[in-house]
Every structure is written in structure tokens, then in C-alpha cells.
């Protein structure tokens, strides 16, 4: 039932990667998951065209006029609906956010990503006022080093904390395996360990993030 929108008007922030990796992790744990691929480049639809046995259902024809209906239909059908949004400030993004239980705002530790992410935060906050209900959101740092935080990453985390903006404690690390799922069109656990390094570490990272995500969602579900 929960609808999770992945939004940042900046392209390349990690929206599609975060959506697909989390969806795979939930599907592997037995959940029914739909991803609405609203990115014009259709990365998730392209992934679905591969040989993966993952149960994830992908819908790729979202438009401004269809997004609300698609989300409403899928939430009645599936346990989780993820909406992978385009990397631009568009009406489709705005409408999808209005139907979300949680907005995940991925950003790489860069000033450009952070500035664009702040636009998504401002939009979420004003939509909350218009809707008269809480739209939970969390910033997710992506492509971070699993070993050491860069100076810029520490600065951005400090700025987010100072502004009291909620963020995931777990980051989505830079991992070859996360790229390989798109290149091979497979799930993390279907990758060939002989060709892709760090699969176990990538899965552990994904599971920690999925666990935190579902804890964030839990209070919203109880309130429904």
C-alpha cells in the first residue's frame, strides 16, 4: 500500500538506482512491488526487459494525466508502489508527490544535487499544507564511499542536520553491483560473483536501507 516517490529535479542523483535496489530487496523478502517508471529514459522498464526472475511489476507509460490513476490503482493491488520520477521540475513530479506516503530525495554529495534537492523539499512542504496531511520525506545520500566520508559529504550532512531536514542514516554506497543490475538487467542476487565484485556487501547495504525505509513507513501506515 505505501507509495514511495523518488524525486530530485537533478538528473543522476540516484533515483532509479535507489528505487530499483530497494524494490529488489523488498521483492526478495516476499513483498509485492510495483515500480512506476516515470523517467523519460525508462531505465527501469529497460531493466524489466531483461531475464531477471524478480517479481517486480514495472509500469512505464506514466504521463501527467495518468500518474494519479496509475498510483491509485497500484496501491490497491500491491504492498509497495515505488515511483521513479524524472530528473526535472515537472507537473508529473508534483502530482506524484501529492499521492506519496514518503518522498525519498536521493542526492550525491555535490552542491548541485543539494540545491536541486532543496527545491523538492520546498515543494513537498507546500503540498503538505495544501493537502492538509503529512507527506513524509527523507534525504538519501547516494554513491557514497563505504569506507570514508568525503569532506563535502560531511559538510552536506551537517547542513541537513542544521536545517533539521530528515535523512536516512544508511547511505546508498557506490558499488559496482548497483551498476551491474542495470547493465545485466538482473537482480542483485542473480549477478555472477565471478564477474561482479562486492555483491554481498551491496546486498547488505540494500537490506539495511530497506530496513530503515520500512521503519520510516511504519508510523504512516499505522496512521491510515
Amino acid at each position, binding site marked *: *500500500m*505505501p507509495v514511495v516517490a523518488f524525486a530530485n*529535479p537533478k538528473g543522476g542523483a540516484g533515483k532509479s538506482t535507489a528505487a530499483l535496489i530497494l524494490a529488489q*530487496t*523488498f521483492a526478495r*523478502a*516476499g*513483498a*509485492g512491488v510495483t515500480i512506476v517508471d516515470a523517467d523519460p529514459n525508462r531505465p527501469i522498464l529497460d531493466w524489466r526487459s531483461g531475464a531477471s526472475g524478480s517479481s517486480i511489476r514495472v509500469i512505464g507509460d506514466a*504521463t*501527467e494525466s495518468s500518474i*494519479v490513476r496509475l498510483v*491509485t490503482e497500484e*496501491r*490497491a*493491488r*500491491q*504492498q*509497495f508502489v515505488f515511483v521513479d520520477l*524524472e530528473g*526535472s*521540475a*515537472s*507537473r*508529473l*513530479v*508534483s*502530482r506524484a508527490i*501529492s*499521492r506519496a506516503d514518503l518522498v525519498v530525495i536521493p542526492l550525491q554529495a555535490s552542491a548541485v544535487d543539494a540545491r536541486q534537492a532543496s*527545491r523538492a523539499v*520546498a*515543494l513537498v512542504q*507546500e*503540498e503538505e499544507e*495544501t*493537502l*492538509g*496531511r503529512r507527506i513524509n520525506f527523507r534525504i538519501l545520500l547516494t554513491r557514497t564511499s563505504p569506507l570514508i566520508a568525503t569532506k563535502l559529504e560531511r559538510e552536506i550532512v551537517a547542513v541537513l542536520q542544521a536545517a533539521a531536514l530528515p535523512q536516512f542514516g544508511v547511505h546508498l554506497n557506490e558499488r559496482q553491483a548497483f551498476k551491474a543490475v542495470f547493465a545485466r538487467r538482473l537482480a542483485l542476487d542473480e549477478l555472477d560473483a565471478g564477474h561482479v565484485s562486492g555483491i554481498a556487501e551491496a546486498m547488505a547495504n540494500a*537490506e539495511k536501507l*530497506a*530496513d530503515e525505509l*520500512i*521503519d520510516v*513507513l*511504519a508510523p504512516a*501506515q499505522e496512521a*491510515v
Partner: protein
Amino acid sequence: MSDNFGFSNRRNLAEKIGAIAPGAKDDAAVAVDRIDDVGERHGFVSREPDAPFRRDKSVGPTVTLHTRVPVRVATPFQRFCEANRYSYWEGIEELMKRAGLIG
């Protein structure tokens, strides 16, 4: 594996997922145009092009007429069509209406 501190009591991911069921949610109370107004204030505007306008060309079944026409007939007919912005078949239709041959 259990421990003496209660950490292993934490529910695992599959258990947490099991608590979530599909279901509808009534959040249609706020009209989409109000959300669009909010979006536009933040620069989230429509990025989809308007559908190009297409004339309705459905005129029913058609046939092609080839005919050699004397210049004394063709020239005033072409001027008539040009002056009234008719295609040739529309010009013929108009003249037949005026002659009372069609309704």
C-alpha cells in the same frame, strides 16, 4: 540466534513486510489543479507538449475524379475555390448545393 540483550527480538524485514497489505486510500479530496498551482509556484510546470491540432478530415468514403477541363471552365472554378478557401472537392460540393443537387 538469540542474545541476552534483546537485540534479536527486533523483527526482520520479511516480518515487517508481512504487516503491510495492499489497499486503497482516499486522498482524492484535494483537486489536482490545486496541486498544480503549488507545483507551478515552485517551478514544477508541465513538460509535456500540447497535442498538435488535427483537422477532422473524416468525410466518408472517397473516390478520385480525373477529368480534362476546358480552360474557360477551369479558370473561374479555380478562382472561385481560391476566393472562398475551398479545396476543389469543397468547391464542387458548394456548387452542387447551390444547384440543388445535394442537401
